[in-house]
């Protein structure tokens, strides 16, 4: 196998990595808001369930969660899963896991906003929903950006865990290539490492730009 075939193959698998990455963020970033809202719900059972969910997500390995989501429906519940279940399951597992972490981060962000902001909004006549979306949320976003960046970078690396349910993302592909006969060997891992690094660098750069864009106040 030539280095070029190796790279082509890695790039294909990198597409899967990107797929997991983007769909996880697309689902988990907003879901985290909902999770945080449920935790603070005045309806006690909902708040309770949410707390249990968060603690399970944080207290067990993501690898295990991937397996439960992928195998669980058929093995535990006897449901016949659709043919494309693997890619759905991987995104689903990542989304529910990351949403729990994001919810924790959002909570910290929201709690750091002075009570006076709520009171000023209330006296001006803003509804609760308006207060949340116009006053609290924008300020929260700015405050949580640094910890969210950390999570997003962790996510880039976590995508490799998808291999546990047989999803061939970039790292899995690198392993397959490296052990194949006549392969470029260890260079494959070096190439994969560079891909991850560059991707992370781009992510960090993007997030930094976002932080700068929000630097206009405070």
């Amino acid at each position, binding site marked *: 196998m030539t280095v070029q075939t190796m790279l082509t193959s890695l790039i294909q698998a990198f597409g899967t990595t990107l797929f997991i990455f983007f769909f996880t963020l697309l689902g988990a970033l907003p879901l985290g808001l909902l999770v945080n809202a449920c935790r603070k719900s005045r309806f006690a059972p909902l708040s309770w369930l949410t707390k249990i969910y968060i603690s399970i997500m944080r207290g067990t390995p993501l690898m295990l969660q991937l397996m439960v989501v992928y195998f669980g429906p058929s093995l535990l519940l006897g449901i016949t899963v659709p043919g494309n279940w693997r890619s759905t399951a991987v995104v689903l597992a990542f989304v529910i896991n990351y949403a729990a972490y994001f919810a924790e981060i959002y909570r910290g962000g929201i709690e750091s906003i*002075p009570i*006076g*902001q709520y*009171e*000023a*909004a*209330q*006296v*001006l*006549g*803003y*509804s609760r929903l*308006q207060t949340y979306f*116009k*006053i609290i949320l*924008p*300020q929260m976003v*700015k405050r949580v950006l640094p910890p969210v960046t950390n999570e997003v970078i962790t996510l880039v690396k976590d995508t490799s865990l998808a291999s546990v349910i047989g999803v061939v993302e970039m790292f899995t592909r690198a392993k397959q290539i490296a052990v194949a006969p006549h392969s470029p060997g260890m260079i494959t891992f070096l190439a994969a490492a560079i891909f991850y690094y560059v991707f992370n660098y781009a992510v960090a750069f993007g997030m930094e730009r976002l932080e700068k864009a929000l630097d*206009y*106040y*405070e």
Partner: protein
Amino acid sequence: MQVLEMEHVKKSFNGAALHVLRDISLHVDEGEVVAIIGPSGSGKSTLLRCATLLTEMDSGDLRYSGQTAARSGADGRAVYADKQTLKKIRGYFGLVFQNFHLFPHYSVLKNLTDAQISVLGRGKTEAQQRARELLAKMGLSDKEDAYPCQLSGGQQQRVAIARALAMDPAILFFDEPTSALDPELTGEILKVIRALAEEHMTMVIVTHEMDFARDVADRVIFMDGGVIVEEGKPEEVFAAPKEERTRQFLARFADR
């Protein structure tokens, strides 16, 4: 018509362990300027918070221009009006906080227009026009694109006053509007409030600035221990207080 009527307001904290307001009644006429003075912990802020619906009173009546926000029920506990009514009543008053509480992510102009648009339903042009009018009055016309963090404390407080006025309240409450400011900045705020008084804006001002209270108020209320100890025209209360507690309190200020 009385803009504000509060009757027999009681409020305690920590499960009735701490009585902060013990039967307070306060009526404010249209165009009247009322100054509330009193030692720390006497319940001045709590009274304003009850009036502005930030804190629920335990019992008592609260009315704005004859509309009931809350009244004591059969068991004596305050019963609040429904959401719709309370929303309407919130339009009657404004509150200026000690620490401004401007929205840091909004420009000065947006701080003044956003609630007009999303609460009062005004059009953007109309809201901006009203905002600019008020900024000019506050001497802040050149600051409409600034963010609160770029302003001095005195400027921030003037923006906060303009933000409250932009909603065209029938009555404006101030809770120690100059206490968070450096002494050299208090003057600019007092000047603004004085100008509002001259336009007969109805105001209730909690303050530790005794000279200012004497100057600007039509009526002075001295609170201590959760009750109104004494009230009257400023010249009466300041020059010839009837109550011993008022005399002691004022003497402490005279010493300064």
